[in-house]
């Protein structure tokens, strides 16, 4: 069976290479059948990669330890769901997942674009083939999941921290995002290679970009949640290079999603948009590379593998190649329109872009700084949270403000009159909220206060927009408020879906601010029966119990929790000791307050011989808003993503007219 896997991957490599070479030749010499043949090669590559994936999955489910990969990442007592997730738990398997998703998306993109963007396909196919060739080559020659060995009695098992439902979804979700960004990139390059300067590539890939961006966002949120509940240090984001690896392409994609709207409305910023999509894709590749090589010292370190060098080479190739292409097409990309006013929606979008890209580059700098300093000084100097948090505040607060102002400003030009009227209600709400918070004591952190006030401003302006729109809709068509609301959103999906997403981001910001600027931390060693007070909670250590779990021995401290003097139940916190993997893990106890979104977070630092336990207790206000924002984010994205029949018709008509013209 491993031979079948290896053969299937070799087939994938051959097909991808054919798609690249034949596709490029066909596009350059305008040969129809060859171009079609190259397309088919991409589709077939999905098939052969699928077969290889089935082989690996089968081996995992059979506990076939003659596969080195299976032996390294599973064990007999591992529950089935985690056995399946071991597919992407290791380096080789995760590369296979990447290729599987890539070929799958490529196939889908090809089939869907045959109707909507047939002119771009000839050049899109070789680009997709190029990326697929690289990953297939890695899988065939450098890092194969189908290595065999003499089967040991049992496998090494999965790292206990990865045995968690979140860790099952988080990597595939992120990969959907990373790989998803390949499609807009390929279409952008395809458009440039075909010397097209119209917005076809943007329109054809708009939903892909939105989808990939959503997947990246949700994937990150899942990862953060996993870190919060499983790793258990009290935080959810450590600015570790691997975490940043996913954040950077997300920020670049966010900027891209906004700036394409300017190209759509005004025909400007064509060069900026192409550069942004290149940046997003290269960061996605870079992110994949970061999580695989030991180049940058990080908590998530990996074995120094030859893969790193190859990845770096490929990223350089892509970056240089695409930038060179852009430069060569510069003359036709330059637009003639100028921005009319500094106070217009275009302007706010531009500022938003600048801030997002600045934040993105700042994080990038922080991530590669150790390497740079090593080259210059001879030793790695790392930067950590203070650096990142500083810039997050500097760029984040203005971004919050822009999110509030943007929706209230019209395109092209907004007179100060209109602005003043639009601002009145939302700004008023914001100020009121600010004052109330100040009275309630939020002044302990002026950044927190500022962030909250801006957040209120954003929520106020979004609410105002919904109200204004529904009112206008109702004035036009009559009917109930609810019907008008649904119609309004249905007819303007991108706009109102976008507003919902903004609301989600604000919830995220509020959650982050609440749990970082206004949290409380206490450490005490307690003997059974003793109590410690943290903020308005009283935590009493009752007793220590020991249980035998499926694959671990569990030690739990039972705690009695009182809030404001009243008992609110018990909490368990402790450690697990995993038999097969010979490791312990922290199992923190979290009590979430349903009304305030606040968490009481108890870490069992150390269980002492004499029965006392060293506890670290944190109270994190509003932290659950972070997880809730994920749902709101998803809803907003779905609304924006939902296909709109009217828009499809209009675009189809436009391109059909012109194709009829060409044929005649």
């Amino acid at each position, binding site marked *: 069976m491993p031979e079948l896997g290896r053969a299937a991957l070799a087939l994938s490599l051959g097909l991808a290479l054919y798609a690249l070479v034949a596709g490029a030749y066909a596009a350059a010499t305008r040969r129809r059948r060859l171009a079609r043949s190259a397309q088919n090669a991409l589709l077939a590559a999905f098939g052969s990669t699928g077969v290889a994936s089935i082989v690996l999955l089968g081996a995992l489910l059979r506990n076939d330890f003659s596969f080195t990969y299976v032996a390294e990442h599973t064990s007999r007592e591992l529950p089935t769901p985690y056995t399946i997730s071991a597919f992407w738990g290791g380096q080789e398997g995760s590369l296979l997942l990447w290729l599987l998703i890539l070929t799958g998306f490529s196939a889908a993109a090809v089939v869907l674009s045959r109707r909507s963007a047939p002119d771009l396909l000839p050049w899109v196919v070789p680009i997709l083939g190029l990326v697929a060739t690289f990953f297939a080559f890695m899988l065939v020659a450098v890092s194969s999941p189908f290595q065999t060995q003499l089967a040991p009695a049992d496998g090494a098992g999965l790292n206990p921290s990865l045995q968690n439902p979140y860790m099952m979804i988080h990597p595939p979700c992120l990969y959907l995002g990373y790989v998803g960004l390949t499609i807009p990139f390929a279409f952008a390059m395809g458009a440039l290679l075909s010397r097209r300067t119209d917005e076809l590539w943007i329109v054809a890939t708009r939903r892909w970009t939105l989808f990939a961006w959503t997947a990246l966002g949700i994937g990150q949120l899942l990862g953060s949640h996993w870190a919060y509940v499983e790793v258990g240090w009290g935080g959810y984001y*450590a600015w570790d290079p691997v975490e940043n690896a996913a954040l950077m392409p997300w920020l670049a994609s966010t900027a891209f999603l906004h700036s394409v709207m300017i190209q759509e409305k005004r025909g400007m910023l064509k060069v900026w948009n192409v550069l942004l999509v290149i940046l997003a894709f290269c960061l996605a590749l870079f992110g994949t590379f970061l999580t695989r090589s030991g180049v940058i010292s990080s*908590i*998530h370190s990996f074995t120094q593998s030859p893969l790193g060098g190859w990845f770096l080479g490929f990223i350089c190739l892509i970056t240089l190649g695409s930038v060179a292409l852009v430069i060569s097409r510069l003359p036709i990309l330059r637009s003639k329109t100028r921005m009319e006013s500094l106070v217009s929606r275009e302007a706010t979008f531009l500022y938003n872009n600048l801030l997002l890209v600045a934040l993105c580059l700042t994080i990038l*700098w922080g991530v590669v*700084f150790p390497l740079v300093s090593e080259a210059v*000084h001879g030793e*790695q100097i790392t930067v950590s949270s203070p650096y990142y948090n500083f810039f997050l505040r500097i760029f984040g607060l203005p971004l919050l403000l822009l999110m509030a102002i943007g929706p209230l400003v019209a395109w092209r030009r907004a007179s100060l009159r209109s602005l003043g009227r639009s601002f009145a209600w939302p700004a008023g709400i914001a100020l009121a909220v600010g004052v109330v918070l100040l009275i309630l004591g939020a002044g302990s952190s002026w950044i927190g206060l500022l962030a909250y006030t801006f957040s209120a401003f954003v929520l106020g302006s979004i609410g105002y927009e919904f109200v204004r729109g529904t009112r206008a809709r109702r004035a036009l068509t009559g009917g109930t408020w609810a019907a008008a609301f649904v119609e309004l959103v249905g007819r303007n999906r991108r706009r109102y879906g976008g507003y919902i997403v903004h609301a989600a981001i604000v919830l995220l910001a509020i959650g982050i601010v609440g749990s970082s600027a206004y949290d409380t931390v206490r450490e005490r060693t307690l003997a059974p029966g003793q109590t410690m007070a943290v903020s308005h909670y009283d935590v009493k250590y009752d007793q220590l119990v020991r249980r035998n779990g499926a694959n671990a021995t569990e030690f739990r401290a039972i705690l009695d929790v009182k809030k404001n003097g009243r008992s609110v139940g018990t909490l368990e916190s402790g450690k697990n000791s995993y038999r097969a993997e010979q490791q312990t893990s922290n199992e923190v106890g979290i009590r979430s307050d349903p009304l305030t979104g606040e968490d009481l977070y108890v870490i069992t630092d150390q269980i*002492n011989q004499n029965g006392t336990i060293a506890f670290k207790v944190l109270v994190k206000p509003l932290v659950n808003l972070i997880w809730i924002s994920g749902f709101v984010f998803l809803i907003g994205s779905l609304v924006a993503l939902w296909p709109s029949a009217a828009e499809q018709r209009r675009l189809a008509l436009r391109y059909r007219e012109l194709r009829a013209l060409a044929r005649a």
Partner: protein
Amino acid sequence: MLAIFLLYVSVAGGTPSIQPSQLHGRTGDVALVGKVTGSPAGDAQATGLRFRMRDVSGQSASVPVVYRGSVPDMFKVGREVRVEGRLQNGLFIAKKDSLRTKCPSKYVAKKT
């Protein structure tokens, strides 16, 4: 303009990451990266956990470390760790709660 600002902030705010063999005679705060060796003794929550660290690769001499704070789950002899602090009189005094372990493989953060 942004570049200069970034450069300044990162240089000013960064912490050098060095291995035990480079520690000799060094003053100031550093991040020490190396493998745990010897037999760890003591209580990190009380008077301090005492252990030794040597270079990741190579058999250089080891440096004694005393650490107070949370100890990550993966901490044990032979594991690669990172801890911040400074060298004082031949003993590396670690900053509280700054001990981190490196997971030997996979994408796992092992902090406390």
